């Protein structure tokens, strides 16, 4: 509650927005070519006054909330060839400070939705329509897999063998037997070998290890 150290003016609209976009950048796993930000509620209404636009762009460029270049993020994006678009959206009964980010990279496309809950605390709750929980307060593994029996157990086994403790786990799917997604908050990151092994498994479609963004 004393922190983050940040560039002003708003912990929820500036620091929180930057963190949400930074999480989205880590999820994409590469520099985006184009990002469309859908601003909901207070993000849409007072975003401009709070530097929300600058902070979101800074985040997808990989800048942290205390980076003083946050102020010049729009020109930085232009120099790096990242196209950014802002829209006002209505996302229904979600937190007033919510953003839906559609990112396009060389290899991937991803839609990431999250809320800034106050004091810089954030939560990504949706990745490509899968329900997740990514808070950036601990290293988090996000896994997309084939929805088939035993996958959760296999992934948990790999973590256990690497002596990684699970703090919080979500599993969700869109339909039975289709694709599913897990978000796994861990007490420490998974080491490189098991991470590679995980990505190699046939029923694992996609893996990202997200570093913490809270300090």
């Amino acid at each position, binding site marked *: 509650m004393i922190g983050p150290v*940040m*560039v002003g003016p708003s912990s*929820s609209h500036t620091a929180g927005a930057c963190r949400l976009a930074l999480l989205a950048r880590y999820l994409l796993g590469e520099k985006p070519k184009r990002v469309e930000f859908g601003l909901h509620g207070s993000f849409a209404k*007072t975003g*401009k*006054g709070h530097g929300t636009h600058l902070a979101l762009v800074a985040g997808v460029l990989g800048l942290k909330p205390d980076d003083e270049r946050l102020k010049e993020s729009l020109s930085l994006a232009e120099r790096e060839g990242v196209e950014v678009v802002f829209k006002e959206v209505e996302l229904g009964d979600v937190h*007033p*400070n919510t953003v839906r980010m559609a990112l396009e990279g060389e290899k991937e496309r991803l839609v990431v939705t999250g809320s800034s809950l*106050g004091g810089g605390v954030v939560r990504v709750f949706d990745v490509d329509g899968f329900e997740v929980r990514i808070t950036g307060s601990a290293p988090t593994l996000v896994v997309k897999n084939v929805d088939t029996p035993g996958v959760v157990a296999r992934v948990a086994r790999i973590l256990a063998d690497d002596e990684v403790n699970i703090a919080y786990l979500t599993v969700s799917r869109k339909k039975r037997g289709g694709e599913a997604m897990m978000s796994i908050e861990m007490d420490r990151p998974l080491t490189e070998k098991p991470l590679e092994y995980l990505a190699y498994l046939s029923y694992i479609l996609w893996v990202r290890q997200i570093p913490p963004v809270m300090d």
Partner: protein
Amino acid sequence: MPLTLNSLAALSGRASEHVLREEVEETGLTPEAILEKLRERLSIMRDSVRRGLASDAPSVAGMVGRNAKTLWEAEDPLKDPLLKRVQAYAMAVNEENARMGRIVAAPTAGSAGTLPGALLGVADHLGIPEEELLMPLVLAAGVGKMIGRVIHIAGASGGCQAEIGSSAAMAAAAVTELLGGTPEACAHAAALALQNTLGLVCDPVGGFVEVPCVMRNGFYAVHAVSAASMALAGIRSVIPPDEVVLAMARIGRLLPLELKETGLGGLADTPTGRKLAEEALKKA
């Protein structure tokens, strides 16, 4: 059970020691590591006060930027160096914030000036060395966390009472501990500060964290010092501290959307407020 203001009030020793113990258990960090992090944040707070007092550069929307410096350099007809110091320090931090300068959120950016205003202001007034401010900061963080378990600390969720109310409660507890108060006094200082911010709305002009935010931090830093002074004298909150926090959370839910950081109501929705918003948006 995590600490609450009520359970803290029932303990002996120093309030901050209990909070630090809980923080060590929760994070797995050593006490030294936690204090080191706060030492760094304290130095950034100090830095933002210094920069803010010296600068008269305009804010992003241009509605503030010279208030802290003006007050700091003005004649003091009241002959009260503490009052002036606390106000000016707090406003200095929030003017830095409004310029998109580097600050420490405490607990939010919009309310970042209250804690350094009260704590550094009192410490400098009395000549208390920086190192002695670390444990009060531990307590302030703990108080923020206790409130944060009950309500999302954001103007968009609970109005300004959730932001400035929390920062004033944190600051009141910290100043009380700095001046030798018991855990009971600290918890009640927080409750007294908080209950006298209840209902405060978040109505920033144009949605910018400038008006009324900058001056409000000056006011509520003084408010926090008042709460500490009352609690140290033995005054207690009639409504138990935890119930005050719950009342704040409930009021937060009752407040209409227009008064929760949307820039649609209150001062933002005055003829001048609307005009300033238009002008500022052209500039930003």
